[in-house]
């Protein structure tokens, strides 16, 4: 359009007339436009003149009130409206929301004339965000303008589309925009390409079919259109460079022409031809030539020329040179070019211009991994930069040093980093640097003393913003020791000594994290030091407890330390004093700790057993089902307490109570229900999950027993005479306060029918397995406290501190959290608290504990959850189908269901006589899918569900079968909003009509929004028959439903690996059936749908993604019967979830 525009000077004066700063409110007789603008002017001027924020707020509120009146007045002209919009933009810019104007902005875009329309669009793009609902109202206007004969309007429409457009409306404008690619005016073609770029960003699938047209745009005769298409190509090549190698020649030619000055002169910027275009092309070439000698070959010439041409001394040429250097060091190397690039970097680094120095350091940091010699060349400059007055330069230099740290220079570099930290105030910088120091210290520490001192510095400087992994890793390292085991105690002694020294200083204030680390180390290892009286240490800890600056979490750590030390001394005055002092503390948790301590002190033998020395790494077994409370519960029920109901059951009942009339038969009278539903509800975690694992038939095991109190499989830890140590081979983690507290309180209360004991032994092994699984579920998140070292570093093998491999690392170093959990669950004299605790656990354990209920819908859930791992195999469709069919038939055999007691809601009354069994539509049968299972039903309808695992989502196919002999109309299916899941498009679906005795189905795509191992999606079905009927159902979805294999090359894996930060490491034991790495990996591939990228020796790498596209990488290594798993992902929760699944499948196979 530039040719249309005649930029004559005659236009300018008229335009500039309005910029008179002197024009006051009212415009003093000037043209209307000028007066309108000056209203904004006067607003700005009066705000500038104000001195306080309060005055500003008052003035703006006033302004907004008057604007509100003006915009909603029917007499307001479009011109005035435009002026109001600009003022609204100004108010919003200052942070005052003016949402009343949004709709008027849309109206202005719709009705306005050119400039007014442009301002309307502008206001829309500034006010609304991508998902704003009002945006839909704009679509019509955009469509109209795209079809306009006025090019200015077309331009505006294309601009707004490329700024902000609702994704779901793309189809409405896409054909129109595609047409514009052939337009005769360059500006239209250019803007159309920009709009398509936007579409590519928000919905790549929708523009897949026009890739050819992108190529045409790349070859457009106009440079601007070509440049616009580069954005799309950069993006696409970033995602998949191998698909565009054939275009390398074109990009090289274009760059050659640009560098050679073949573009029109107005593309020059300070006589450099199209610099930003050059930069864009250099980036693309870098991506294409990476690890590809043949493609790189094609670009050597043009890179050489770029380096040569960019010799004018101007900032913009430096920008090009920087990009050039980066590209040269990214692609397959050519020594001649590397030399030139290195020279160029040298020039940058040595430059007196500070911005250039920064750029040089950044380039050096980038290339130093390929060529460490370059650092040697510039070592003096680097040293100078380290003491540079500009902290930004310093920080960049430290970043550079971090990359070249090794065993020899670590002391110096870490010292420099610590020096920087002491001056730095910015939290983000501190977190970042502290993490790096901890990593380097762990990797390269020259000796123990230095390591401890450095870590102390990390904790004191980092304060409480340090990443929680750092203290956890540190403690773990101390606890687990090193490969040789020799220096372990030495290091611990150093640590204890240094902390005692720190505590000597009376008035020092230490961050909480440091205090916690100190407490733990003193508690565990202070007895290694023989020359210090434990009494002295206890006194110090005691005085810490009294300080006000110590948080309650830290106090928990300190109390744990005191308890541990107390267990090793015969009697201590300090402990007695402490007990006395805090028994009356106003803080409940303190009273509780002291109470526990007191009881333990009274029984020293027991205390020693609980708190053996240096046992933090030993395995522990946690009775997470709280089975030792069963007797207590039974007693409570016997006294008439209400039985526990799981949360969702309570919810269902609450909902059903809301109905006006109750058509269900009343439940059995209370006396008998105590023994049936009541006990089952309570005991179920042990019974049902246990049953489902042993026989694969949870229904049977679970429900046959409903008339007796089931106590087999429940291990008795506590009996009438108190603790029963002889029957117990592992008492769980010995210093586990939870067990302690329960013991002291409940010892006298829990009955122990001796007759049941003989059964315990037989079941113990199964039980153990179950519990281990529970333990791994419980402590799964804490496994992530593993290392931070970068896999990419070449010299990981030289690490100073290598961790010992442990058989089972599912332990929790953070005892504080145990304390806290214990606080909730220990003291439950009333039955009421038990259900609450159960619910808490339920939340934690996600799955296991909720596998129990009489309701049929729950059984379905169990089935879904249960069969998923088997059913998810990528290959072997037939086998999978038969698998899932098996599990279904065994779970849903009619005989099982008929054993059910009729539950209050009578939902599964007629489960055995389903008339209509739905099947998947043909097009879905091709895809991997689960069996069709029944969700719920009543007299009229039955609801079935089938999971279809498509490549890009989980497709839930819901079947509604009409069992009646008349057609049902307006059957409405609604999914409730779930915390963890997102239903694409609408969460509801209406079946207009379902014919008599027929089946209808609908499909919903689901993504996992928030990661969990398993979650429940519930919903309801409403319809009108004689009366309104409401049917509820819920579906259990597992993380695995949303995991898909991710294909990639080893190189891509390596690159991605380095760019990811969330680490989770865990060793798991391999069973005899999968002793080889490939067998283990195959198990993971089949059951978890991971993609095996590569296997090298005893190491393997796998990749998968969580839908829609969150990658998770896995690195596996086998050694001595163990499989070391190392996950990385951009999402922190994903590795934990996958780790859990890995453990599960490895144990199952």
């Amino acid at each position, binding site marked *: *359009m*530039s040719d*249309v*525009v005649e*930029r004559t000077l005659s*236009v300018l004066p008229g335009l*500039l007339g*309005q*910029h008179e*700063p002197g024009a006051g409110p009212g415009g003093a007789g000037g043209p209307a436009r000028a007066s309108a*603008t*000056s209203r*904004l*002017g006067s607003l700005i001027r009066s*705000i*500038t003149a104000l001195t306080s924020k309060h005055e500003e707020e008052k003035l703006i509120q006033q302004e907004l009130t008057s604007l509100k009146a003006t915009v909603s007045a029917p007499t307001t002209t479009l011109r005035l409206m435009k002026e109001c919009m600009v003022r609204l*933009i*100004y108010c*919003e*810019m*200052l*942070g005052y929301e003016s949402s009343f104007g949004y709709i008027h902005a849309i109206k202005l875009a719709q009705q306005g004339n*050119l*400039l007014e329309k442009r*301002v309307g669009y*502008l206001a829309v*793009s500034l006010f609304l*965000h*991508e998902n704003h609902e009002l945006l839909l109202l704009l679509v019509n206007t955009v469509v109209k303008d795209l079809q306009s004969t006025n090019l*200015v309007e077309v331009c505006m429409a294309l*601009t707004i589309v*490329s*700024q902000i457009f609702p994704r779901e409306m793309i189809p409405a404008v896409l054909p129109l925009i595609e047409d514009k690619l052939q337009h005769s005016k360059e*500006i239209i073609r250019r803007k159309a390409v*920009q709009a398509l*770029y936007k579409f590519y960003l928000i919905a790549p699938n929708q523009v897949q079919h026009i890739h050819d047209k992108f190529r045409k745009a790349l070859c457009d005769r106009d440079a*601007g259109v070509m*440049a*616009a298409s580069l*954005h799309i190509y950069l993006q696409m090549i970033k995602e998949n460079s191998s698909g565009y190698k054939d275009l390398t020649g074109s990009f090289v030619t274009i760059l050659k022409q640009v560098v050679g000055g073949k573009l029109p002169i*107005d*593309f020059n*910027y300070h006589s450099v031809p199209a*610099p930003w275009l050059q*930069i864009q092309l250099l980036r693309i070439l870098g991506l294409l030539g990476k690890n590809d000698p043949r493609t790189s070959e094609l670009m050597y010439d043009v890179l050489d020329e770029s380096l040569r041409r960019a010799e004018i001394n101007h*900032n*913009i040429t430096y*920008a090009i040179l*920087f*990009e050039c250097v980066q590209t040269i060091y990214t692609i397959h190397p050519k020594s001649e070019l590397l030399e030139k690039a290195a020279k160029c970097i040298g020039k940058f680094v040595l430059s007196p211009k*500070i*911005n250039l*120095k*920064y750029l040089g350091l950044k380039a050096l940091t980038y290339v130093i991994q390929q060529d460490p010699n370059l650092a040697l060349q510039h070592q003096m400059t680097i040293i100078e930069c380290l003491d540079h*007055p*500009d902290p*930004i330069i310093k*920080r*960049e230099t430290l970043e550079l040093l971090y990359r070249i740290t090794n065993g020899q220079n670590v002391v110096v570099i870490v010292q420099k980093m610590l020096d920087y930290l002491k001056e730095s105030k910015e939290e*983000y910088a501190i977190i970042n640097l502290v993490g790096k120091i901890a990593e380097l210290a762990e990797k390269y520490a020259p000796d123990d003393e230095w390591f401890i001192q450095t870590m102390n510095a990390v904790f004191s400087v980092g304060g409480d913003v340090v990443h929680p992994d750092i203290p956890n890793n540190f403690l773990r390292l101390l606890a687990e020791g090193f490969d040789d085991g020799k220096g372990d105690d030495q290091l611990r002694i150093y640590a204890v000594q240094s902390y005692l020294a720190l505590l000597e200083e009376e008035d020092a204030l230490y961050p909480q994290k440091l205090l916690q680390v100190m407490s733990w180390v003193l508690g565990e290892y202070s007895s290694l030091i023989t020359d210090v009286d434990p009494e002295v240490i206890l006194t110090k800890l005691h005085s810490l407890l009294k300080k006000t600056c110590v948080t309650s979490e830290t106090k928990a750590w300190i109390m744990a330390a005191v308890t541990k030390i107390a267990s090793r001394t015969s009697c201590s005055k300090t402990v007695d004093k402490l007990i006395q002092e805090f028994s009356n503390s106003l803080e409940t948790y303190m009273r509780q700790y002291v109470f526990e301590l007191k009881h333990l002190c009274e029984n020293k033998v027991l205390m020693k057993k609980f708190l053996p020395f240096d046992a933090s790494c030993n395995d522990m077994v946690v009775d997470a089902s709280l089975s030792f409370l069963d007797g207590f519960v039974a007693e409570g029920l016997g006294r008439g307490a209400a039985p526990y109901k799981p949360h969702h059951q309570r919810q269902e009942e609450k909902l059903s109570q809301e109905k006006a009339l109750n058509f269900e038969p009343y439940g059995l009278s209370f006396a008998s229900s105590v023994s049936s539903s009541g006990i089952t509800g309570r005991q179920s975690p042990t019974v049902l999950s246990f049953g489902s694992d042993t026989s694969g038939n949870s229904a049977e095991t679970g429900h046959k027993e409903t008339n007796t109190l089931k106590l087999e499989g429940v291990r008795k830890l506590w009996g009438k005479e108190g603790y029963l140590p002889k029957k117990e081979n592992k008492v769980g983690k010995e210093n586990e306060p939870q067990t302690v507290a329960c013991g002291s309180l409940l010892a006298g209360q829990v009955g122990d029918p001796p007759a049941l004991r003989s059964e315990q032994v037989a079941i113990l092994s199964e039980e153990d397995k179950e519990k281990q699984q529970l333990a791994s579920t419980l402590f799964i998140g804490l496994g992530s406290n593993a290392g931070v070292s970068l896999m990419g570093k070449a010299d990981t093998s030289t690490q100073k501190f290598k961790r010992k491999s442990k058989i089972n690392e599912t332990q929790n170093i953070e005892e504080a959290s145990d304390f806290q959990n214990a606080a909730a669950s220990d003291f439950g004299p009333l039955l009421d608290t038990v259900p609450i605790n159960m619910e808490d656990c339920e939340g934690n354990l996600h799955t296991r504990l909720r596998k129990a209920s009489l309701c049929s819908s729950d059984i379905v859930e169990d089935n879904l959850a249960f069969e998923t791992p088997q059913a998810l195999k990528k290959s072997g469709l037939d086998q999978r189908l038969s698998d899932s069919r098996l599990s279904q038939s065994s779970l849903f055999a009619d005989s099982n269901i008929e054993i059910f007691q009729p539950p209050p809601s009578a939902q599964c009354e007629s489960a055995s006589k389903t008339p209509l069994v739905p099947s998947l539509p043909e097009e879905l049968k091709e895809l991997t899918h689960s069996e069709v299972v029944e969700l719920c039903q009543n007299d009229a309808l039955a609801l079935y569900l089938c999971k279809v695992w498509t490549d890009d989502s989980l497709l839930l196919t819901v079947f509604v079968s009409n069992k009646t002999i008349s057609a049902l109309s307006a059957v409405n299916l609604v999914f409730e909003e779930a915390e963890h899941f997102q239903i694409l498009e609408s969460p509801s679906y209406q079946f207009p009509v379902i014919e008599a005795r027929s089946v209808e189905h609908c499909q919903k795509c689901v993504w996992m929004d928030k990661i969990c191992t398993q979650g429940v999606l519930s919903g309801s079905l409403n319809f009108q028959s004689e009366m309104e009927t409401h049917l509820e159902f819920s579906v259990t979805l597992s993380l695995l439903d949303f995991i898909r294999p991710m294909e990639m090359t080893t190189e891509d894996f390596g690159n991605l690996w380095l760019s990811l930060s969330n680490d989770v490491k865990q060793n798991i034991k391999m069973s005899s059936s999968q002793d080889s790495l490939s067998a283990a990996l195959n198990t993971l591939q089949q059951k978890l749908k991971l993609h095996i990228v590569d296997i090298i020796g005893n190491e393997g790498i796998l990749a998968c993604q969580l839908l829609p596209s969150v990658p998770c990488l896995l690195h596996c290594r086998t050694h001595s019967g163990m499989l070391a798993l190392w996950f990385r992902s951009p999402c922190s929760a994903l590795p934990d979830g996958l780790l859990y699944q890995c453990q599960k499948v490895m144990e199952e196979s």
Partner: protein
Amino acid sequence: MIKFFLMVNKQGQTRLSRYYEHVEINKRAMLEAEVIKNCLSRSKDQCSFIEYKDFKLVYRQYAALFVVVGINETENEMAVYELIHNFVEVLDKYFSRVIMFNLDRVHIILDEMVLNGCIVETNRSRILAPLFVLDKVVES
């Protein structure tokens, strides 16, 4: 990628802001205040790039006015530094005196140059072309 484009005066008053990633309106003012504080704390002989949280600020000062651009690590700082100057040169070419009363036009110019956080046009005559056409229509 460019995350935001700001013009702030020395007193910390925002003259123009454009965000290319959605930021809640109440968080903007705070961010802008922090940004300008960071810029003001730096002297002339310090470099024009600031590491700020997980992104970088590139700033240039023109008399009492700061132009600050927030970018992520994929962007070339120097190229953005010059983009700012290019933008100012375009403004200079279009406006003769005060630009702050023409918020809408400054936005229109910026929209031609930067879209979705990408630099889309740097050719001065092409940047101004649509605006000149609009002005011509208004004039007639």
